[in-house]
């Protein structure tokens, strides 16, 4: 069976009907003709859907308080729901994309994303919270090209690292080198835009992909050493500005630090701690409704969940994210070619690190950087990117099953 077949069968008749009934008793893998809908990993998709669905009430709760009374209280809610809908649509398209075509289009996607990042310097560029990382679009929409660049990074690196035909041996050093060059370009550009958080996520993606590609150990050691050295040099030469260092280190000594970053961190922890076991109830969190936590509809959305839904709500949130990551790992493990495995690994590293960084910063065990919570935080581009990432995972899974 080829990917082409599955594509036609899917775009053809009612997908659920054609897939489900015909093969229920036939034993999926042996038959090898499972429909797309049967091959989708619902343990992956449903938790992500639940996360996005649940996020709407918390985004609503958080954003209501920001708005002036004369504004439409559902302003952010409506946009959030639109973003999720678009994101799911994008995921659907990405997941059903011909696997071979995906590889073919990768260079285009990569170049486009670099152009996108550079477009930030055009008159359309927009600076938010010290980071020049946005492009304003007509209609009040903004997009953050660096989010899409993560997709390009994952695909681009997977393409180069999996180029070699012999799947049983590790990538050649030359491939690893070029993969790293490919990663360095967007990371460098994003760093120049003061978007440390995204640069960090990209670096983690690149490192993880190189590691899982099977590259020789010296690459791993070299990358770690290089990272440490780069951080040291950046601090010593003053490349990182004081406020950047402060932002990164304030979590170490929150009570002793009086800066705005420390204040935000303290307020975030107060909000979460205030939730207790069962939470204050939706719309009832005093920290949330009093606007004590900044950007709590996007980067600090977890403080709203923590305060209003309490420990139970927050635990469910972490649990759903954990499910997504577990299924991502499974997909990477089971992938039957290196390209698929590396795509899945890149996406996994991306979602895992963003989850840990975002929740960690809200709870004061990670530095505060502008990293959104996948599937949950308000923000169009990051929501699209999360769902595209999910779409890539589904694509790999579907491809794997159809090859089995």
């Amino acid at each position: 069976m080829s990917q082409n077949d599955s594509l036609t069968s899917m775009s053809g008749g009612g997908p659920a009907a054609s897939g489900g009934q015909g093969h229920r008793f036939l034993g999926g893998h042996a038959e090898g003709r499972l429909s797309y809908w049967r091959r989708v990993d619902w343990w992956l998709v449903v938790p992500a859907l639940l996360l996005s669905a649940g996020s709407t009430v918390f985004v609503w709760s958080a954003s209501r308080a920001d708005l002036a009374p004369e504004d439409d209280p559902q302003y952010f809610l409506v946009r959030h729901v639109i973003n999720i809908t678009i994101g799911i649509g994008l995921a659907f398209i990405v997941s059903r994309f011909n696997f071979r075509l995906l590889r073919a289009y990768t260079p285009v996607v990569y170049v486009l994303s670099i152009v996108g990042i550079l477009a930030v310097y055009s008159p359309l560029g927009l600076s938010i919270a010290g980071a020049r990382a946005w492009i304003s679009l007509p209609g009040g929409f903004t997009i953050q090209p660096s989010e899409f660049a993560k997709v390009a990074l994952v695909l681009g690196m997977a393409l180069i690292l999996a180029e070699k035909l012999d799947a049983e041996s590790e990538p050649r050093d030359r491939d690893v080198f070029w993969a790293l060059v490919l990663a360095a370009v967007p990371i460098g550009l994003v760093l120049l835009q003061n978007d440390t958080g995204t640069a960090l996520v990209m670096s983690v993606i690149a490192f993880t992909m190189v590691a899982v590609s099977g590259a020789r150990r010296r690459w791993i050691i070299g990358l770690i050493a290089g990272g440490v050295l780069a951080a040291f040099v950046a601090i010593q030469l003053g490349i990182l500005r004081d406020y950047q260092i402060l932002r990164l280190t304030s979590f170490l000594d929150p009570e002793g630090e009086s800066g705005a970053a420390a204040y935000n961190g303290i307020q975030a922890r107060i909000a979460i701690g205030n939730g207790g076991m069962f939470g204050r109830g939706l719309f009832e969190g005093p920290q949330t409704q009093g606007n004590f936590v900044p950007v709590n509809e996007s980067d600090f959305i977890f403080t709203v969940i923590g305060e209003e839904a309490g420990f139970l709500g927050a635990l469910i949130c972490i649990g759903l994210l954990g499910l997504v990551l577990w299924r991502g790992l499974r997909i990477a493990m089971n992938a039957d070619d290196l390209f698929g495995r590396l795509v899945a690994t890149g996406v996994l590293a991306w979602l895992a690190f963003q989850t840990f960084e975002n929740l960690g910063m809200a709870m004061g065990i990670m530095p505060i950087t502008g990293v959104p919570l996948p599937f949950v935080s308000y923000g169009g581009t990051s929501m699209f990117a999360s769902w595209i990432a999910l779409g890539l995972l589904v694509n790999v899974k579907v491809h794997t099953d159809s090859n089995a």
Partner: protein
Amino acid sequence: MSERSNLRLIVLGVLIVSLLGTLVARLSYLQLVAGEEYQAAAANNSTREVLTPAVRGLILDQRGRPLVANRISLVVSIDRLALDREDDEGAATVAGLAEALDITPAQITDRLLPCGQEGAAKPPICWDGSPYQPVPIATDVDPETALAIMERRSEFPSVTAQLESVREYPQPFDANMAHLLGYVGPVSQQQLDAQEDSVDPARLRSRDLIGRNGLESQYDSELRGIPGITSLAIDTAGRVTGTVGESQPVPGNYVVTHIDSRLQAVVEEELEAAVKRARSFGNDGESGAAVVVDVRTGGILAMASYPTYDPDLWVGGISTRDYDRLLESRALSSNAIQGTFPPGSTFKPITTIAAAQEGYDLGGTYDCPSDYEVGSQTFRNFESEGFGPITLQRALEVSCNTVFYRLADEMWLKGGGNAATVESPDPIADAAARFGLGQVTGVDLPGEAPGLVSGRIEKQATWEERRDNWCAEAKEGFPETRAEDVELADYFTALSKENCLDGFRWRNGDAINASIGQGDTAVTPLQMAMVYAAIANGGTLYRPHLAKAILTSSGEVVQEVLPESVGTVGDEASMAFLRDALIGVTVDGTGRSSFEGFPLDQVPVASKTGSAQVFGDVSTISWYTSFAPADDPRYAVVMMVTQGGTGSGTSGPSVRAIYEALFGVNGSSVNPKRSVLIDAAPADQLPVVRPDGTPVVPGLDDAAARLTDDSLAVRR
């Protein structure tokens, strides 16, 4: 795919699981372990409290008459923090406000300076409240003035004029009671700090008034109440976003006292009359005190101190002039509980009890010579009169000193004489301690003085404290005195040298002085009242108390203060002996002149006179201690006047007048209906407070009938 790749994926998986575990652990800590802490922080963050002050509780007399109440007053205050922010640090505001209020700017600045700051006046004129609390400048401002000030808000941005509840002293029957009631003042920063992070709703807050003396201070926590708190939710910009919680203010509790204000008025008048009497005899008559207690309960029915002051002076803050005058008149402290004086002959019953316990026969006969010699010293009887051999009862009646001198000398010798140590027996001091002297009575008033019992222990302690001083004096030889009078300087030097060497030794001369309440022994009039109350009731020493009960503002009883015995002073036989002897004092002893013509057959009075010498004073302290009716004692009455002359001459007539008021005596007739006490007895029921908080006061017609009665004549 390579094994290496698989392995690294597994490592990645382990890493992800451990990171998720870390997140869950941290979440549990924040929300479950440290949750309360963060909840408190959140509450603090996002709510502001608006307080509705609680009405302070009333203080009532035993019949429900308000002694301290509240009224509404227009108060002009200055917010010091706002004043300091003005361009000229508020100079223009102060000047303008002084003009508007018709006072001097200095009067305002005196009030504004925090106590302890350089140039600040003494407390309570200086500001000892919280810096965040507006300082009241003028109370009872007339509405026109207040309105004029508020209309000039732009001129006086830091000044407010608002209606506030202030304390009022109704002074029923013109009873003053300043020392009993005390006053309220702003809470101090130290008191606020001392509470630390209290979240008790009844805690002190920076705008609170707090009792600063008397009952207001003693029962402050009962009287203060709990303010109503409206918790408003606010956002980061300080906008009110809603009401989180609301509680109604709980008015302060009422304190019902044993005081009968009508009796109190009589006692105050009679004390003043005694002081004037002392002056009419050519004495200085500086000050005095009078106490009436219920011997069956220890309840204080009346207690007065002279001189006194107008408690209204404190309302809204006292002025410098008034305060200086108060200090000068020495009217601030209560002589009844804070002044200590030698008891003189009123101490003799205690010496009697000591002798009885040492085995002396109370029915025996003792020689009363005109003087008693010990070594080179001669101790004289009062006016050097000798009575020859007399009974001990007669010795008390005529107050024969030499009888007690001999008893003291013999007991001293028996206790070891000069060879005695500090542990050797000291029967007189022991008896005095049993009667509660040398220690606070535990009355429910702040600042009570313990007094002193002269004895071996006391002498040793004094010597240890002053030895260095004495020795230094002996060495220096009083050079200043020596320049003028060599002989006197020699005498002083010898005295200091003796004190330096063995000033710790309790000599027979000391014991002899102690036996008649002289020497270092010092007592408060309240202590003496409790001594005589104990003799009257058969030997039970009660803790004196003013409060009879605590009621809620709607009249429910919170707590009834029950009589509290703190010890027994002697056996029934000794007490009976003393009662008879003290009756004899009134009938045919030193107290006779005071009670000439008093119907002692119907109202037997037991009493003791005292004329105590004070080193440096021209005249003696006039003491009159008593209880009645002696056959079924109910009241103990004690009065003393410093620089007052004799007990019977100065205080005696006033004590008699107090008994006349208590029992309704007019001339030689007794009519209980004329008593200043309703039903001629202390109230046995608690007063009734209506649910709206107003106490039921004895009917006006009732009172009017009494006032037109000749009881008024009794009072004069």
